[in-house]
Protein backbone atom coordinates (compact mmCIF):
# COMPACT_ATOMS: atom_id res chain seq x y z
CA UNK A 1 0.00 0.00 0.00
CA UNK A 2 1.27 3.44 -0.94
CA UNK A 3 0.31 6.45 1.16
CA UNK A 4 1.50 9.83 -0.07
CA UNK A 5 1.65 13.02 1.94
CA UNK A 6 1.05 16.39 0.29
CA UNK A 7 -0.11 19.88 1.26
CA UNK A 8 -0.14 22.63 -1.34
CA UNK A 9 1.34 25.17 1.04
CA UNK A 10 4.90 24.60 2.16
CA UNK A 11 5.92 24.18 5.77
CA UNK A 12 2.64 22.75 7.03
CA UNK A 13 4.27 19.61 8.42
CA UNK A 14 4.40 17.05 5.61
CA UNK A 15 7.83 15.81 6.60
CA UNK A 16 6.90 15.75 10.29
CA UNK A 17 3.89 13.54 9.51
CA UNK A 18 5.84 11.31 7.10
CA UNK A 19 8.70 10.65 9.53
CA UNK A 20 6.58 10.18 12.64
CA UNK A 21 4.16 7.91 10.79
CA UNK A 22 7.02 5.79 9.44
CA UNK A 23 8.67 5.46 12.87
CA UNK A 24 5.35 4.60 14.54
CA UNK A 25 4.53 1.86 12.02
CA UNK A 26 7.99 0.39 11.59
CA UNK A 27 9.03 -1.92 8.75
CA UNK A 28 8.06 0.61 6.06
CA UNK A 29 9.67 2.22 3.09
CA UNK A 30 9.79 6.01 3.21
CA UNK A 31 10.38 7.95 0.00
CA UNK A 32 11.36 11.61 0.13
CA UNK A 33 10.19 13.02 -3.22
CA UNK A 34 10.86 16.65 -2.26
CA UNK A 35 14.06 16.42 -4.26
CA UNK A 36 14.55 20.21 -4.37
CA UNK A 37 14.75 20.38 -0.60
CA UNK A 38 14.84 16.86 0.87
CA UNK A 39 14.58 17.02 4.65
CA UNK A 40 13.54 13.55 5.83
CA UNK A 41 17.16 12.41 6.22
CA UNK A 42 17.79 15.33 8.60
CA UNK A 43 15.27 13.82 11.01
CA UNK A 44 16.06 10.13 10.45
CA UNK A 45 19.87 10.20 10.13
CA UNK A 46 19.94 7.07 7.96
CA UNK A 47 22.97 4.95 7.27
CA UNK A 48 23.38 5.36 3.50
CA UNK A 49 23.86 2.03 1.76
CA UNK A 50 23.54 3.00 -1.87
CA UNK A 51 23.86 6.10 -4.01
CA UNK A 52 23.05 6.38 -7.70
CA UNK A 53 23.29 9.33 -10.04
CA UNK A 54 20.24 10.48 -11.97
CA UNK A 55 20.80 11.22 -15.63
CA UNK A 56 18.73 12.77 -18.36
CA UNK A 57 19.50 12.41 -22.05
CA UNK A 58 20.16 15.59 -23.93
CA UNK A 59 20.88 16.03 -27.62
CA UNK A 60 24.30 16.55 -29.06
CA UNK A 61 24.52 17.94 -32.59
CA UNK A 62 27.30 16.76 -34.85
CA UNK A 63 27.99 19.95 -36.79
CA UNK A 64 29.85 18.02 -39.50
CA UNK A 65 26.72 16.08 -40.40
CA UNK A 66 24.23 18.90 -39.77
CA UNK A 67 23.11 20.84 -42.83
CA UNK A 68 21.12 23.35 -40.76
CA UNK A 69 17.76 22.38 -42.20
CA UNK A 70 16.12 23.59 -39.00
CA UNK A 71 13.81 20.59 -38.57
CA UNK A 72 14.97 19.91 -35.02
CA UNK A 73 14.33 23.42 -33.76
CA UNK A 74 11.03 23.52 -35.60
CA UNK A 75 10.01 20.27 -33.89
CA UNK A 76 11.09 21.14 -30.35
CA UNK A 77 8.00 22.22 -28.41
CA UNK A 78 10.16 23.53 -25.58
CA UNK A 79 12.39 25.83 -27.66
CA UNK A 80 15.45 23.99 -26.39
CA UNK A 81 16.99 24.01 -29.87
CA UNK A 82 17.46 27.12 -31.93
CA UNK A 83 18.76 26.75 -35.44
CA UNK A 84 20.90 29.45 -36.97
CA UNK A 85 22.39 29.16 -40.48
CA UNK A 86 25.79 28.34 -38.97
CA UNK A 87 25.08 26.46 -35.78
CA UNK A 88 22.35 24.80 -33.76
CA UNK A 89 22.14 26.40 -30.33
CA UNK A 90 21.04 24.16 -27.48
CA UNK A 91 19.51 25.36 -24.20
CA UNK A 92 19.72 22.39 -21.81
CA UNK A 93 17.54 24.01 -19.12
CA UNK A 94 14.57 23.92 -21.52
CA UNK A 95 15.07 20.34 -22.76
CA UNK A 96 12.52 17.71 -21.63
CA UNK A 97 14.59 14.82 -23.01
CA UNK A 98 11.77 13.60 -25.26
CA UNK A 99 14.18 12.43 -27.97
CA UNK A 100 12.10 13.96 -30.75
CA UNK A 101 14.91 15.98 -32.32
CA UNK A 102 16.82 12.75 -32.96
CA UNK A 103 13.76 11.33 -34.71
CA UNK A 104 13.23 14.27 -37.01
CA UNK A 105 16.85 14.89 -38.03
CA UNK A 106 17.17 13.68 -41.65
CA UNK A 107 20.98 13.60 -41.43
CA UNK A 108 21.27 11.56 -38.24
CA UNK A 109 23.35 14.39 -36.89
CA UNK A 110 21.85 14.23 -33.42
CA UNK A 111 22.87 11.76 -30.75
CA UNK A 112 22.14 11.82 -27.06
CA UNK A 113 24.42 12.06 -24.11
CA UNK A 114 23.64 11.53 -20.46
CA UNK A 115 23.86 14.49 -18.15
CA UNK A 116 23.79 14.07 -14.39
CA UNK A 117 21.11 16.21 -12.72
CA UNK A 118 20.92 14.68 -9.27
CA UNK A 119 21.20 11.56 -7.15
CA UNK A 120 19.06 8.98 -5.42
CA UNK A 121 20.22 7.72 -2.03
CA UNK A 122 19.02 4.70 -0.15
CA UNK A 123 19.58 4.14 3.53
CA UNK A 124 18.19 2.62 6.69
CA UNK A 125 17.23 4.09 10.04
CA UNK A 126 15.88 1.63 12.60
CA UNK A 127 13.27 -0.41 10.72
CA UNK A 128 12.61 2.30 8.15
CA UNK A 129 14.11 2.10 4.70
CA UNK A 130 14.60 5.62 3.37
CA UNK A 131 14.98 6.53 -0.29
CA UNK A 132 15.51 10.16 -1.16
CA UNK A 133 16.44 12.20 -4.17
CA UNK A 134 18.56 15.28 -4.43
CA UNK A 135 18.36 17.63 -7.40
CA UNK A 136 21.66 19.33 -8.23
CA UNK A 137 21.54 23.06 -7.48
CA UNK A 138 20.92 25.04 -10.68
CA UNK A 139 19.08 22.19 -12.41
CA UNK A 140 15.47 23.12 -13.18
CA UNK A 141 13.82 19.72 -13.79
CA UNK A 142 13.00 17.79 -10.65
CA UNK A 143 10.60 15.27 -12.22
CA UNK A 144 13.27 12.82 -13.55
CA UNK A 145 14.80 12.63 -10.04
CA UNK A 146 11.37 11.95 -8.52
CA UNK A 147 10.79 9.21 -11.11
CA UNK A 148 14.05 7.54 -10.13
CA UNK A 149 13.16 7.72 -6.43
CA UNK A 150 9.83 6.07 -7.17
CA UNK A 151 11.51 3.27 -9.15
CA UNK A 152 12.77 2.05 -5.76
CA UNK A 153 9.23 1.30 -4.50
CA UNK A 154 8.89 -2.16 -3.00
CA UNK A 155 5.23 -2.94 -3.47
CA UNK A 156 5.28 -5.70 -0.85
CA UNK A 157 5.86 -3.07 1.82
CA UNK A 158 3.89 -0.18 3.23
CA UNK A 159 5.27 2.79 1.33
CA UNK A 160 5.06 6.38 2.60
CA UNK A 161 5.81 9.18 0.15
CA UNK A 162 6.71 12.70 1.27
CA UNK A 163 5.89 15.15 -1.56
CA UNK A 164 7.19 18.61 -2.37
CA UNK A 165 5.02 21.69 -1.72
CA UNK A 166 2.94 23.27 -4.47
CA UNK A 167 0.45 21.65 -6.82
CA UNK A 168 2.21 21.34 -10.17
CA UNK A 169 4.17 18.64 -11.97
CA UNK A 170 6.60 17.56 -9.20
CA UNK A 171 3.65 17.05 -6.82
CA UNK A 172 1.65 15.09 -9.41
CA UNK A 173 4.67 12.90 -10.10
CA UNK A 174 5.07 12.23 -6.36
CA UNK A 175 1.47 11.36 -5.48
CA UNK A 176 0.68 9.59 -8.76
CA UNK A 177 -0.21 5.94 -8.27
CA UNK A 178 -0.66 6.16 -4.51
CA UNK A 179 -3.58 4.38 -2.89
CA UNK A 180 -4.30 7.15 -0.43
CA UNK A 181 -3.12 10.70 0.12
CA UNK A 182 -2.83 12.54 3.42
CA UNK A 183 -3.16 16.30 3.04
CA UNK A 184 -1.37 18.09 5.84
CA UNK A 185 -2.68 21.59 6.42
CA UNK A 186 -2.85 24.22 9.11
CA UNK A 187 -5.92 26.14 10.25
CA UNK A 188 -4.93 29.44 8.65
CA UNK A 189 -6.24 31.23 5.54
CA UNK A 190 -3.08 30.27 3.59
CA UNK A 191 -3.33 26.65 4.73
CA UNK A 192 -6.99 26.41 3.67
CA UNK A 193 -6.49 28.18 0.34
CA UNK A 194 -3.70 25.83 -0.70
CA UNK A 195 -5.50 22.77 0.69
CA UNK A 196 -8.40 23.52 -1.68
CA UNK A 197 -5.98 23.52 -4.61
CA UNK A 198 -4.64 20.09 -3.64
CA UNK A 199 -8.18 18.75 -3.16
CA UNK A 200 -8.88 19.66 -6.80
CA UNK A 201 -5.70 17.89 -7.90
CA UNK A 202 -6.55 14.69 -6.02
CA UNK A 203 -10.15 14.70 -7.23
CA UNK A 204 -8.87 14.87 -10.80
CA UNK A 205 -6.33 12.12 -10.16
CA UNK A 206 -9.01 10.06 -8.46
CA UNK A 207 -6.91 9.38 -5.37
CA UNK A 208 -8.84 9.05 -2.09
CA UNK A 209 -7.66 11.44 0.61
CA UNK A 210 -8.09 12.74 4.12
CA UNK A 211 -6.80 15.74 6.03
CA UNK A 212 -4.39 16.09 8.93
CA UNK A 213 -4.56 19.41 10.70
CA UNK A 214 -1.20 20.44 12.08
CA UNK A 215 -0.72 23.30 14.56
CA UNK A 216 -4.35 22.86 15.58
CA UNK A 217 -5.41 25.72 17.83
CA UNK A 218 -3.84 28.56 15.85
CA UNK A 219 -5.73 30.61 13.27
CA UNK A 220 -9.42 30.07 12.70
CA UNK A 221 -12.05 27.35 12.23
CA UNK A 222 -12.72 27.76 8.51
CA UNK A 223 -10.77 24.66 7.52
CA UNK A 224 -13.05 22.55 9.73
CA UNK A 225 -16.18 24.03 8.12
CA UNK A 226 -14.71 23.44 4.66
CA UNK A 227 -13.91 19.78 5.37
CA UNK A 228 -17.32 19.19 6.88
CA UNK A 229 -19.08 20.77 3.95
CA UNK A 230 -17.04 18.78 1.42
CA UNK A 231 -17.32 15.55 3.41
CA UNK A 232 -13.53 15.30 3.73
CA UNK A 233 -12.48 13.29 6.79
CA UNK A 234 -10.14 14.94 9.29
CA UNK A 235 -8.03 11.97 10.33
CA UNK A 236 -5.72 13.53 12.88
CA UNK A 237 -5.04 16.81 14.62
CA UNK A 238 -1.59 17.67 15.87
CA UNK A 239 -1.88 20.52 18.35
CA UNK A 240 0.32 23.60 18.21
CA UNK A 241 2.80 22.89 21.00
CA UNK A 242 6.07 24.62 21.52
CA UNK A 243 7.62 21.27 22.46
CA UNK A 244 6.78 19.76 19.06
CA UNK A 245 8.14 22.83 17.26
CA UNK A 246 11.35 22.79 19.30
CA UNK A 247 11.88 19.04 18.73
CA UNK A 248 11.42 19.53 14.99
CA UNK A 249 13.88 22.42 14.99
CA UNK A 250 16.49 20.19 16.63
CA UNK A 251 15.93 17.43 14.09
CA UNK A 252 14.15 15.05 16.48
CA UNK A 253 10.94 13.28 15.35
CA UNK A 254 8.44 14.01 18.13
CA UNK A 255 7.29 10.38 18.58
CA UNK A 256 10.79 9.68 19.91
CA UNK A 257 10.27 12.04 22.86
CA UNK A 258 6.49 11.71 23.03
CA UNK A 259 5.93 7.95 22.49
CA UNK A 260 2.22 8.22 23.32
CA UNK A 261 1.85 9.60 19.79
CA UNK A 262 2.99 6.32 18.20
CA UNK A 263 -0.36 4.76 18.98
CA UNK A 264 -2.17 7.69 17.32
CA UNK A 265 -0.19 7.25 14.12
CA UNK A 266 -0.81 3.49 14.16
CA UNK A 267 -4.53 4.12 14.57
CA UNK A 268 -4.35 6.64 11.73
CA UNK A 269 -3.00 3.90 9.44
CA UNK A 270 -5.72 1.48 10.61
CA UNK A 271 -8.28 4.16 9.86
CA UNK A 272 -6.90 4.64 6.33
CA UNK A 273 -6.95 0.88 5.67
CA UNK A 274 -10.53 0.69 6.92
CA UNK A 275 -11.54 3.54 4.61
CA UNK A 276 -9.82 1.85 1.67
CA UNK A 277 -11.99 -1.23 2.18
CA UNK A 278 -15.18 0.78 1.85
Amino acid at each position, binding site marked *: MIVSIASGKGGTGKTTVAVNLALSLGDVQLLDCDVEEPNVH*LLLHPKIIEEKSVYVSTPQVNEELCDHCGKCSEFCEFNALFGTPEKVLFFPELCHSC*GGCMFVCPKDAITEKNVEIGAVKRGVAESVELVYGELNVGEPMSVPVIKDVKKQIKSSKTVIIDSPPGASCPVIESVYGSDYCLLVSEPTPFGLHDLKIMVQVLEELNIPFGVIINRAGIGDKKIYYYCEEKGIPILLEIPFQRKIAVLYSSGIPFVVEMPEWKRKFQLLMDDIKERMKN
Partner: protein
Amino acid sequence: MEEKVSVTHGRHKGAYEKLKQIAVVSGKGGTGKTTITASFAVLAHDTVIADCDVDAPDLHMLLHPQTMKTQEFKGSKLAVIDRTKCTECGLCQNSCRFDAISESVEIDPFSCEGCGVCVIVCPEEAISLKERISGYAFISKTKYGSMSHARLNPGESNSGKLVTLVRHNARQIAEEENRDLILIDGPPGIGCPVIASVTGVDAGLVVTEPTMSGIHDLNRALQLLKHFNILPLVCINQYDINKENTEILVKFCEKNKLEVAGKIPFDPTVTEAMVAGKTVVEHSPENIVSQEIEATWKIVLSALNRK
Protein backbone atom coordinates in the same frame (compact mmCIF):
# COMPACT_ATOMS: atom_id res chain seq x y z
CA MET B 1 14.17 68.85 -8.48
CA GLU B 2 14.97 66.83 -5.45
CA GLU B 3 12.19 64.93 -3.78
CA LYS B 4 12.21 64.39 -0.08
CA VAL B 5 13.61 60.99 0.77
CA SER B 6 11.51 59.21 3.32
CA VAL B 7 13.70 58.66 6.35
CA THR B 8 11.91 55.48 7.30
CA HIS B 9 12.24 53.73 4.02
CA GLY B 10 15.19 55.35 2.36
CA ARG B 11 13.78 55.46 -1.13
CA HIS B 12 11.56 57.66 -3.17
CA LYS B 13 10.06 57.49 -6.59
CA GLY B 14 12.80 57.44 -9.15
CA ALA B 15 15.46 56.74 -6.51
CA TYR B 16 17.18 54.23 -8.74
CA GLU B 17 18.52 55.02 -12.15
CA LYS B 18 17.47 51.65 -13.42
CA LEU B 19 14.77 49.24 -12.39
CA LYS B 20 15.70 47.10 -9.41
CA GLN B 21 14.21 43.75 -8.55
CA ILE B 22 14.29 41.91 -5.26
CA ALA B 23 13.04 38.35 -4.80
CA VAL B 24 11.98 36.84 -1.49
CA VAL B 25 12.77 33.13 -1.60
CA SER B 26 13.32 30.36 0.91
CA GLY B 27 14.17 26.88 -0.24
CA LYS B 28 12.00 25.38 2.46
CA GLY B 29 8.29 26.16 2.29
CA GLY B 30 6.33 27.88 5.01
CA THR B 31 9.14 29.97 6.43
CA GLY B 32 7.19 33.22 6.06
CA LYS B 33 8.01 34.53 2.58
CA THR B 34 4.51 35.80 1.88
CA THR B 35 4.03 37.36 5.32
CA ILE B 36 7.26 39.27 4.88
CA THR B 37 6.74 40.20 1.22
CA ALA B 38 3.24 41.55 1.95
CA SER B 39 4.62 43.80 4.68
CA PHE B 40 7.45 44.92 2.41
CA ALA B 41 4.83 45.90 -0.19
CA VAL B 42 3.24 48.22 2.38
CA LEU B 43 6.57 49.70 3.47
CA ALA B 44 7.93 50.12 -0.06
CA HIS B 45 5.29 52.58 -1.30
CA ASP B 46 4.42 52.35 -4.97
CA THR B 47 6.45 49.34 -5.89
CA VAL B 48 5.31 46.77 -8.42
CA ILE B 49 4.46 43.52 -6.66
CA ALA B 50 4.88 40.14 -8.38
CA ASP B 51 3.57 36.92 -6.83
CA CYS B 52 5.67 34.24 -8.50
CA ASP B 53 4.32 31.36 -6.42
CA VAL B 54 1.88 30.39 -9.15
CA ASP B 55 1.17 26.87 -7.83
CA ALA B 56 -0.09 28.04 -4.47
CA PRO B 57 -0.36 31.83 -4.55
CA ASP B 58 -1.28 33.37 -1.21
CA LEU B 59 -0.17 37.01 -1.39
CA HIS B 60 -3.54 38.16 -2.72
CA MET B 61 -5.15 37.17 0.56
CA LEU B 62 -3.22 39.94 2.31
CA LEU B 63 -3.05 42.56 -0.44
CA HIS B 64 -6.57 42.17 -1.90
CA PRO B 65 -5.82 42.99 -5.51
CA GLN B 66 -8.53 44.24 -7.81
CA THR B 67 -8.00 42.49 -11.13
CA MET B 68 -7.85 44.83 -14.12
CA LYS B 69 -6.75 42.37 -16.78
CA THR B 70 -6.81 38.57 -17.12
CA GLN B 71 -4.70 36.65 -19.62
CA GLU B 72 -5.10 33.01 -20.57
CA PHE B 73 -1.88 31.08 -20.19
CA LYS B 74 -1.35 28.39 -22.77
CA GLY B 75 1.74 26.84 -21.33
CA SER B 76 1.66 23.36 -22.73
CA LYS B 77 0.13 21.04 -25.24
CA LEU B 78 -1.57 17.70 -24.99
CA ALA B 79 -1.52 14.82 -27.48
CA VAL B 80 -4.96 13.83 -28.76
CA ILE B 81 -5.63 10.59 -30.65
CA ASP B 82 -8.20 10.35 -33.41
CA ARG B 83 -9.67 6.91 -32.69
CA THR B 84 -11.14 6.62 -36.18
CA LYS B 85 -7.61 6.63 -37.66
CA CYS B 86 -5.74 4.73 -34.93
CA THR B 87 -4.86 1.09 -35.69
CA GLU B 88 -3.42 0.49 -32.20
CA CYS B 89 -0.02 -0.40 -33.65
CA GLY B 90 1.65 0.70 -30.43
CA LEU B 91 4.43 2.75 -32.01
CA CYS B 92 3.43 5.86 -30.09
CA GLN B 93 3.40 3.98 -26.82
CA ASN B 94 6.89 2.62 -27.43
CA SER B 95 8.27 6.03 -28.38
CA CYS B 96 6.82 8.01 -25.48
CA ARG B 97 9.45 8.64 -22.83
CA PHE B 98 6.92 9.90 -20.30
CA ASP B 99 4.83 6.70 -20.11
CA ALA B 100 1.86 8.81 -21.09
CA ILE B 101 0.29 6.32 -23.50
CA SER B 102 -1.32 3.18 -22.12
CA GLU B 103 -1.50 -0.33 -23.61
CA SER B 104 -4.96 0.50 -24.92
CA VAL B 105 -3.52 3.66 -26.53
CA GLU B 106 -5.11 6.17 -24.16
CA ILE B 107 -3.28 9.42 -23.42
CA ASP B 108 -2.76 10.16 -19.74
CA PRO B 109 -3.06 13.97 -19.53
CA PHE B 110 -1.09 14.08 -16.27
CA SER B 111 1.94 12.34 -17.76
CA CYS B 112 1.84 13.86 -21.26
CA GLU B 113 4.37 16.67 -21.62
CA GLY B 114 3.17 17.67 -25.08
CA CYS B 115 6.50 16.96 -26.78
CA GLY B 116 4.98 15.71 -30.04
CA VAL B 117 7.08 12.57 -30.50
CA CYS B 118 3.92 10.44 -30.80
CA VAL B 119 2.66 12.79 -33.51
CA ILE B 120 5.68 12.19 -35.74
CA VAL B 121 5.95 8.43 -35.20
CA CYS B 122 2.29 7.68 -35.91
CA PRO B 123 2.08 6.11 -39.40
CA GLU B 124 -1.65 6.87 -39.61
CA GLU B 125 -1.32 10.57 -38.73
CA ALA B 126 -3.89 9.92 -36.04
CA ILE B 127 -2.29 12.07 -33.34
CA SER B 128 -2.18 15.83 -33.00
CA LEU B 129 -1.16 18.30 -30.32
CA LYS B 130 -3.78 20.57 -28.79
CA GLU B 131 -3.01 23.65 -26.78
CA ARG B 132 -4.30 23.55 -23.27
CA ILE B 133 -5.06 26.44 -20.99
CA SER B 134 -2.78 25.79 -18.04
CA GLY B 135 -3.65 28.84 -16.02
CA TYR B 136 -4.30 32.55 -15.93
CA ALA B 137 -2.14 35.61 -15.42
CA PHE B 138 -3.59 38.72 -13.77
CA ILE B 139 -2.67 42.37 -13.69
CA SER B 140 -4.24 44.04 -10.69
CA LYS B 141 -4.34 47.14 -8.57
CA THR B 142 -3.74 47.11 -4.84
CA LYS B 143 -3.61 49.88 -2.26
CA TYR B 144 0.15 49.49 -2.31
CA GLY B 145 0.83 49.51 -6.04
CA SER B 146 0.16 47.41 -9.09
CA MET B 147 0.43 43.66 -8.83
CA SER B 148 1.28 40.99 -11.35
CA HIS B 149 0.16 37.51 -10.35
CA ALA B 150 -1.16 34.26 -11.73
CA ARG B 151 -2.80 30.98 -10.99
CA LEU B 152 -1.62 27.73 -12.49
CA ASN B 153 -4.46 25.26 -12.91
CA PRO B 154 -4.12 22.52 -10.30
CA GLY B 155 -1.86 19.74 -11.49
CA GLU B 156 -0.52 21.57 -14.54
CA SER B 157 3.09 21.63 -15.62
CA ASN B 158 5.28 24.44 -16.86
CA SER B 159 4.96 26.70 -13.85
CA GLY B 160 8.36 28.19 -14.79
CA LYS B 161 6.90 29.58 -18.01
CA LEU B 162 4.00 31.16 -16.14
CA VAL B 163 6.44 32.72 -13.66
CA THR B 164 8.30 34.18 -16.62
CA LEU B 165 5.03 35.70 -17.84
CA VAL B 166 4.31 37.18 -14.38
CA ARG B 167 7.77 38.76 -14.36
CA HIS B 168 7.38 40.05 -17.89
CA ASN B 169 4.08 41.68 -16.93
CA ALA B 170 5.65 43.18 -13.81
CA ARG B 171 8.44 44.76 -15.84
CA GLN B 172 5.96 46.15 -18.29
CA ILE B 173 3.90 47.73 -15.49
CA ALA B 174 7.06 49.16 -13.93
CA GLU B 175 7.93 50.77 -17.24
CA GLU B 176 4.45 52.14 -17.86
CA GLU B 177 4.09 53.52 -14.35
CA ASN B 178 7.69 54.61 -14.08
CA ARG B 179 8.38 52.52 -11.00
CA ASP B 180 11.91 51.65 -10.04
CA LEU B 181 11.39 48.58 -7.88
CA ILE B 182 9.79 45.18 -8.36
CA LEU B 183 9.14 43.10 -5.26
CA ILE B 184 8.89 39.37 -5.97
CA ASP B 185 7.31 36.74 -3.72
CA GLY B 186 8.99 33.51 -4.80
CA PRO B 187 7.88 29.89 -4.63
CA PRO B 188 9.59 27.35 -2.35
CA GLY B 189 12.24 24.95 -3.63
CA ILE B 190 15.15 25.46 -6.01
CA GLY B 191 13.71 24.05 -9.25
CA CYS B 192 12.32 25.60 -12.41
CA PRO B 193 9.76 28.06 -10.98
CA VAL B 194 12.35 29.33 -8.48
CA ILE B 195 14.99 29.72 -11.16
CA ALA B 196 12.44 31.61 -13.28
CA SER B 197 11.68 33.84 -10.26
CA VAL B 198 15.27 34.83 -9.51
CA THR B 199 17.02 35.11 -12.88
CA GLY B 200 18.10 38.68 -13.41
CA VAL B 201 17.05 40.03 -10.01
CA ASP B 202 19.38 42.36 -8.10
CA ALA B 203 19.08 40.68 -4.74
CA GLY B 204 17.50 37.60 -3.18
CA LEU B 205 16.31 37.62 0.41
CA VAL B 206 16.32 34.05 1.68
CA VAL B 207 13.82 33.62 4.51
CA THR B 208 14.83 30.75 6.75
CA GLU B 209 14.00 29.38 10.20
CA PRO B 210 16.27 27.98 12.91
CA THR B 211 15.46 24.32 12.27
CA MET B 212 17.68 21.59 10.86
CA SER B 213 15.61 21.72 7.64
CA GLY B 214 15.85 25.51 7.56
CA ILE B 215 19.66 25.40 7.81
CA HIS B 216 19.92 22.71 5.13
CA ASP B 217 17.53 24.46 2.74
CA LEU B 218 19.10 27.90 3.28
CA ASN B 219 22.37 26.46 2.12
CA ARG B 220 20.84 25.12 -1.08
CA ALA B 221 18.92 28.35 -1.76
CA LEU B 222 22.16 30.34 -1.30
CA GLN B 223 24.00 28.04 -3.69
CA LEU B 224 21.27 28.71 -6.22
CA LEU B 225 21.65 32.51 -5.84
CA LYS B 226 25.40 32.15 -6.17
CA HIS B 227 24.95 30.02 -9.28
CA PHE B 228 22.98 32.87 -10.88
CA ASN B 229 25.24 35.56 -9.47
CA ILE B 230 22.57 37.24 -7.34
CA LEU B 231 23.34 39.23 -4.18
CA PRO B 232 22.19 37.06 -1.26
CA LEU B 233 20.61 38.39 1.95
CA VAL B 234 19.32 36.29 4.82
CA CYS B 235 16.34 36.72 7.13
CA ILE B 236 15.88 34.38 10.09
CA ASN B 237 12.19 34.09 10.88
CA GLN B 238 10.91 32.79 14.23
CA TYR B 239 14.51 32.99 15.39
CA ASP B 240 13.56 32.45 19.04
CA ILE B 241 12.06 28.98 18.40
CA ASN B 242 15.59 27.60 18.71
CA LYS B 243 18.25 30.13 19.68
CA GLU B 244 21.09 27.62 19.40
CA ASN B 245 20.22 27.00 15.77
CA THR B 246 19.88 30.75 15.21
CA GLU B 247 23.42 31.09 16.54
CA ILE B 248 24.54 28.41 14.05
CA LEU B 249 22.81 30.30 11.23
CA VAL B 250 24.38 33.62 12.25
CA LYS B 251 27.87 32.07 12.45
CA PHE B 252 27.32 30.38 9.09
CA CYS B 253 26.42 33.77 7.57
CA GLU B 254 29.44 35.46 9.18
CA LYS B 255 31.76 32.80 7.87
CA ASN B 256 30.35 33.09 4.37
CA LYS B 257 30.22 36.92 4.49
CA LEU B 258 26.46 36.98 4.11
CA GLU B 259 24.41 39.83 5.44
CA VAL B 260 21.74 38.88 7.98
CA ALA B 261 19.13 41.46 7.07
CA GLY B 262 16.73 40.51 9.83
CA LYS B 263 15.87 38.35 12.81
CA ILE B 264 12.14 38.15 13.38
CA PRO B 265 10.71 36.55 16.52
CA PHE B 266 7.82 34.10 16.71
CA ASP B 267 4.58 35.85 17.55
CA PRO B 268 0.95 34.70 17.27
CA THR B 269 0.11 38.17 15.91
CA VAL B 270 1.36 37.02 12.51
CA THR B 271 -1.40 34.38 12.31
CA GLU B 272 -3.97 36.82 13.74
CA ALA B 273 -3.12 39.33 11.00
CA MET B 274 -3.41 36.59 8.37
CA VAL B 275 -6.83 35.56 9.69
CA ALA B 276 -7.87 39.22 9.54
CA GLY B 277 -6.62 39.32 5.92
CA LYS B 278 -4.11 42.04 6.71
CA THR B 279 -0.39 42.54 6.50
CA VAL B 280 1.19 42.35 9.93
CA VAL B 281 2.69 45.87 9.67
CA GLU B 282 -0.81 47.30 9.20
CA HIS B 283 -2.57 44.96 11.61
CA SER B 284 -0.18 45.53 14.52
CA PRO B 285 2.31 48.27 13.66
CA GLU B 286 3.60 48.44 17.24
CA ASN B 287 4.22 44.72 17.48
CA ILE B 288 7.83 43.55 17.64
CA VAL B 289 7.36 41.48 14.46
CA SER B 290 6.27 44.58 12.52
CA GLN B 291 9.20 46.56 13.84
CA GLU B 292 11.67 43.84 12.93
CA ILE B 293 10.19 43.52 9.43
CA GLU B 294 10.59 47.27 9.02
CA ALA B 295 14.20 47.10 10.21
CA THR B 296 14.81 44.24 7.76
CA TRP B 297 13.32 46.25 4.91
CA LYS B 298 15.70 49.15 5.63
CA ILE B 299 18.68 46.82 5.45
CA VAL B 300 17.41 45.25 2.23
CA LEU B 301 17.04 48.72 0.70
CA SER B 302 20.48 49.86 1.72
CA ALA B 303 21.93 46.66 0.24
CA LEU B 304 20.05 47.41 -3.00
CA ASN B 305 21.31 51.01 -2.89
CA ARG B 306 24.90 49.83 -2.61
CA LYS B 307 24.58 47.64 -5.66
